[in-house]
């Protein structure tokens, strides 16, 4: 088995794990978004590694990478829109102060 592929997948797994930790442990909305960015970065790396080492002749692999990048950009746009609205009404983007959103 290819060392390069395994290295890439392990790095992707580590980024995914760090991202999960960040998204679950942080109380600030922007920091939670950073965790989600790392999770998506792990997925991105896996997709590139699969394209490069397993199916280099199938261009659809690159297409999936572009879709993940689009999701990253969307997450940023929507997240910051929500953050601005929240900050305008409550003066804070701390998620521990947002328990009323559950109601």
């Amino acid at each position, binding site marked *: *088995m*290819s*060392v*390069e*592929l*395994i*290295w*890439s*997948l*392990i*790095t*992707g797994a*580590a*980024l*995914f*794990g*760090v991202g*999960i*930790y*960040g998204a*679950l*442990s*942080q*109380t*600030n*909305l*922007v*920091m939670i978004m*950073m965790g989600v*960015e*790392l999770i998506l*970065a792990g997925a991105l*790396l896996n997709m*590139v590694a699969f394209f*490069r*080492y*397993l*199916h*280099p*002749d199938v*261009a*659809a692999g*690159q*297409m999936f990478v*572009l*879709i993940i990048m*689009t999701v990253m*950009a*969307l997450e*940023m*746009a*929507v997240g*910051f*829109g*929500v*953050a601005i609205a929240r900050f*305008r009404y409550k003066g*804070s983007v*701390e998620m*521990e102060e947002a328990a009323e959103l559950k109601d």
Partner: protein
Amino acid sequence: MITAQAIFIGFFGIAAVWFGVVVFRTFSMVRSAIALLFSQTALGAMFLTMEVEFLGVLQIMMMATEMSIMAIFMVMFMMDPGGMGEMDMTHQKQFSLTAGFISFVGAVAVAVFIDWGPVSTVAVDSVEQTKALGFELLDRSMLIFEMAGITILTAMIAATAVAIKPASKTSQPKSSSTAHGDHQHKEQSK
């Protein structure tokens, strides 16, 4: 067999993970955003090492812009953006650590124990890769590509609409003090 490519992939991979950890370890929000930028750039360098050049350059360019914007927003929204007060902004740490570790171990187990089949050691020429992606985007995957574009546009409009301050329905009456102040100002200017 360990090749130069494997060594560089390992190096940039460790850098990406290390900077990813630094994001949640520093108290300064600016450092946090810059660490995430370095992590994503190391990922782009990994792509370049893998000879996937178009996606590598795209990753670096896109993330540099995205993280710069994120740094600005973080400074705006945080109570202590410089981290001088060393405020702890975490909760359920033990649970998060466990969840992160289990995710990591699970993903590594899948990566190591699955037989991925034959591996291609020779990369397709970068010009051919980009050309194939171009044909893919404007041929078979055109609908997906167009949908992605429209989704981004919709999200941008929706995010702006959510963020705009709603105008108040009733106009505020001019207070007497303000009118008095205006009058004084006019007199002074005369």
